[in-house]
């Protein structure tokens, strides 16, 4: 048990996943939407990267779907990212790939008992 905790900790520093305002907030038009923070540490042009997402509060989340588009070029990513539920509102999204520099809009759909809530955030990659 201790050993497992250690391994997980090494892969995923738990402190980075806390809902403490250190992540980039995703915004939603829905005023009742729970706060969501995103961590984009290893974003690199044309290389796969992972994003960490924390949903604050204690809603029970059924599903999270993440995608991204380049608004200026009318296209999205060439890959479907994989979302892994880490528990306690934390998720890791693998297989994100931004193949061109410029502005990307990350889109997230959060599914829970109230329905679907859409979140977005733009980020610029050089």
């Amino acid at each position, binding site marked *: 048990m201790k050993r497992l905790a250690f391994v997980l900790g090494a892969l995923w520093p738990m402190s980075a996943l806390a809902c403490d305002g250190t992540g980039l907030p995703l915004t939603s038009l829905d005023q009742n939407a729970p706060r969501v923070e995103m961590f984009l540490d290893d974003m690199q*042009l044309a290389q796969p990267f992972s994003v960490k997402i924390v949903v604050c509060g204690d809603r029970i989340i059924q599903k999270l779907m993440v995608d991204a588009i380049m608004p200026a070029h009318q296209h999205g990513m060439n*890959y479907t990212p994989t979302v892994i539920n880490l528990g306690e509102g934390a998720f890791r999204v693998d*297989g994100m790939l931004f193949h061109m*520099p410029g502005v990307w809009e990350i889109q997230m759909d959060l599914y829970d008992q109230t329905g679907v809530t859409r979140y977005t955030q733009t980020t610029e990659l050089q």
Partner: protein
Amino acid sequence: MIRGFICAMLFWGAPVMADVILSPVEISQTLSLGPWPPEPEPDKSNRVSGSRAAIALGEDLFTDPILSKDASLACSSCHDPAQGFTVPVSRAVGREILDRNSPSVVNLGGLRWFGWGGKSDNLWAASLHPIVAEQEMAHSAQSLQTALSASRHAVAYEAIFGPIDQQSPEAVLVNTAKTLAAYQEVLVTLPTTFDTFRDALEQRDHVAAGRYSESAQRGLQIFLGKGNCIMCHSGPRFSNNEFHDAGVPYFIDETSVDTGRFGGLNILLASPYTLAGAWSDDETKHGAWAVQNVRQTHANFGTFRTPSLRGAADTAPYMHDGSLPDLTAVVRHYNEINLERMHADGEAILQPLNLSEAEISDLVAFLETLSEVPN
């Protein structure tokens, strides 16, 4: 006193130097185009990647027509080592004229996709396809096994993989392709005059950087700026290794089209020779995420893999169909791009550039430095 004198001597003795004319933003973009070469990464899906014996056998097989059923074609018939690992014809000539230009097979280690339409996600699969393609070398796994075991290569093959007759024909085919991949993996172009410039910028050595011609620097500015070339030709390989419509017609003749990435993906998704498949030697299936998660969309139709620009000056003609004879023609193509030829659901990146003749020759001068090896 003495010091001042030496400085003055150096100043007068030096050749006339251009200045570095790039802005700080352009310098940081330029740094992203290196360093070169990349760290070699062994291909975990190929257990003979990096093996000297396999590289030697792969090199030997590469030029041997034994890999074609009627002993008429070698890999080198279309990828000639003496001509930048391609041949100067528009469309490759196999048993018939193929739809596409033979790409050079250098700098392929570590790529995510291979072929103009990305029908392979690894180098050994890309090397296997031509052996069995009916229009190319036309072997079956069976006929390859028979030919190899009767050839002078049998000894080297068995030293690496064990008795050839005890292996399935398909295993022999895959093993053969893996030696060809091991060989091609070590084909890496040398650092160029552009890299000397880029590295000098990184070291803030403006004297050394100033030796890069001003014309090439102006061309680089167009490449990074109004030409928008770096949108797709990015990173040390000058390619994002993804698929785009660069406005090259995709009609093969009046009745057929080259579907590019669309068709490439269909071949890939049906192939047993991917990083996710049983023929990969990597138990962790590193890299398989790409074939598992890649999206097939209508927008893939008629898009082609962004080619690397390293060494490109030596590998005319250009584009997937070899339709443009030289680099000036490529730059003119982008300069006058025909938007009506672009897909309606295209990316709206390319547009006519309105470059002057002087700017066209600057951009060409820059592209040439990506192939120029300093002595």
